[in-house]
């Protein structure tokens, strides 16, 4: 009897590392009636898929690599009001479960920010492995989730003249990863 591997439900096996040049990991959050954006760079990430289909996605980014447009704002984000880079210099993620259905993917895991771990569910899309011009094999994954920053102890705010808080609690996280076979 033979086994047919259902490639619409499994991940490509092997160890895949993030291509930091072309990948993007960022956040956006509602602030003062608009949307404020930033990026994390550099980012490291590895997807390890065993022959049995078991897969684990891990990733991390240094807090010192949180990039925004203004140096004073960047310093504020590094400070105890936000990420507290001195006491918690790294943001990290580790999956506990990955499900694929066609080109859709759901990754459950634990996100650690400011030394606080919270469960998160990332949803998005996954591409098929293809040869790249550099002789490697790669595919892309796009993942999104929304987290409540206050659950990680990031509670800073400033009231608007109306009394409403200037900064929302919900932060949208987006990871667009190019994964290259090691």
């Amino acid at each position: 009897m033979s086994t047919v591997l259902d490639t619409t439900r499994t991940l490509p096996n092997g160890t895949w590392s993030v291509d930091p040049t072309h990948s993007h990991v960022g956040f956006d959050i509602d602030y003062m009636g608009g949307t404020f954006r930033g990026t994390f760079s550099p980012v490291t990430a590895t997807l390890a898929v065993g022959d049995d289909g078991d897969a684990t996605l891990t990733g991390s980014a240094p807090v010192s690599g949180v990039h925004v447009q203004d140096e004073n704002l960047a310093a504020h984000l590094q400070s105890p009001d936000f990420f507290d880079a001195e006491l918690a210099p790294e943001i990290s993620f580790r999956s506990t479960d990955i499900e694929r259905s066609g080109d859709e993917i759901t990754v459950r895991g634990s996100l650690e920010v400011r030394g606080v771990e919270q469960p998160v569910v990332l949803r998005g899309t996954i591409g098929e492995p293809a040869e790249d011009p550099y002789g490697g094999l790669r595919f892309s994954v796009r993942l999104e989730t929304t987290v409540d920053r206050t659950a990680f102890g990031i509670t800073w705010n400033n009231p608007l003249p109306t009394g409403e808080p200037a900064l929302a609690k919900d932060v949208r996280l987006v990871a667009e990863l190019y994964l290259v076979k090691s």
Partner: protein
Amino acid sequence: MKVLGIAGSLRHDSWNRKLLRAAADVLPSDAELEIWDGLKAVPPYDEDDDHDPAPAAIAQMREAIAGADAVLIATPEYNSSIPGQLKNALDWASRPLATNVLRNKPVAIVGASTGVFGAAWAQAELRKVLATTGARVLDDGVSVGRAPEQFDGSGRLVDLDIENSLLAVVEKLVDQARTRERARRRIAVAA
């Protein structure tokens, strides 16, 4: 472990200077409190004067803060808020904002006043100001109301509960400074 003490009052025999000395008495044995006496010499903040090299009094203040592991501020309350000269000094200390000497510095705030509230509002406003500078500000404080009744002739606190509150604050401040030092060492090793 060096803690820099800043009294928000200029008066030589101020209650807040006494409160700093009382804090020095309850500091852990491996910590010392140095009371900074340069507040009166701080000129009014003027962006035209805010250049490199900084005015001598400002350079001295920044050096004193940078060289301390933690800062303890004891403030009176003027018209329900921070004494002007103290706020002015912190405005100088906060420049340039992104790299100022207070950034990440553990800071605790206590206060004494002749009224009943012990400079509680001034302490609250100082916490807001110092958080904006990027300092690591303790939420806990000590409010010494009716200050003339709270110190004996030698300047010691007469109320054991107040002294215990002060002890708790300085222990937390020193602990915060130790935690920060360990974290900085880890970062340095990793780099």
